[in-house]
């Protein structure tokens, strides 16, 4: 019985040490972190992606890492290149020049028509 009590105390102490270690690791990490608010839907999708990555990489993957993966892979994965879209607008030089002039005017006006609520 004594032995069991002692064994339990030791394992609790170890567990506490482990918790303290993770707590301080977390605090250390958190100094480099920023808080973001995401919707439940986004959170759930991110968790799914983190889970998929975890399976692929065979190690724990945080939501932060999942987000970084998404950001960097957006243009690199699946062989998708931005330049694949070259020529996908149908617009002559003249048409673009006219639109550009119109856009420039729009910026100068910098206001929208007032409508009654």
């Amino acid at each position: 019985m004594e032995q069991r009590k002692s064994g339990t105390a030791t394992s609790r102490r170890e567990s506490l040490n482990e918790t303290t270690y993770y707590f301080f690791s977390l605090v250390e990490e958190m100094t480099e972190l920023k808080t973001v608010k995401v919707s439940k839907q986004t959170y759930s999708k991110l968790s799914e992606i983190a889970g998929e990555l975890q399976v692929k990489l065979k190690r724990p993957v945080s939501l932060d890492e999942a987000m970084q993966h998404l950001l960097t892979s957006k243009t690199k994965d699946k062989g998708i290149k931005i330049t694949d879209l070259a020529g996908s607008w149908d617009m002559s030089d003249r048409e673009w020049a006219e639109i550009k002039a119109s856009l420039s005017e729009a910026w100068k006006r910098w206001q929208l028509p007032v409508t009654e609520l």
Partner: protein
Amino acid sequence: MAAARDRVVIDTDLLVDLLRDVRNVVDFIDEIEKKGYLLSTTIINAFELFYGAYKSKKRAQNLAATKRLLDRLIVLRMNLKSAEKAGQIHVELEAKGQLLGIRDAMISAITLTKGYSLVTRNIQHLQKIKELALIAVP
């Protein structure tokens, strides 16, 4: 925040030239894409692309292409930090008598505060903003 050379915001003119298949721009973007640069644009440039697509004769086609392009790029949004920076840039240049459009102030501020470099043809004009890292298209 120091600007990383391998994280770039691409200005509207260049994105339009890419979509219109202007060869030197396509080659340039292809080159930086192959080098692994993180390609992005800002929400202001996204507005300009949509404006162009909606105003064009081939609206449906150009709008679909615009959405596909923006889906592949990281679109940097304006936040409180970049809004403050845009205000600061605009007022400081105004005080020096160096006028800069609201649009340029906003794009520059978003680029600066997120730690990106700006790829643009508008180098001479934007050099007024000392902290802004600029990349010219050859």
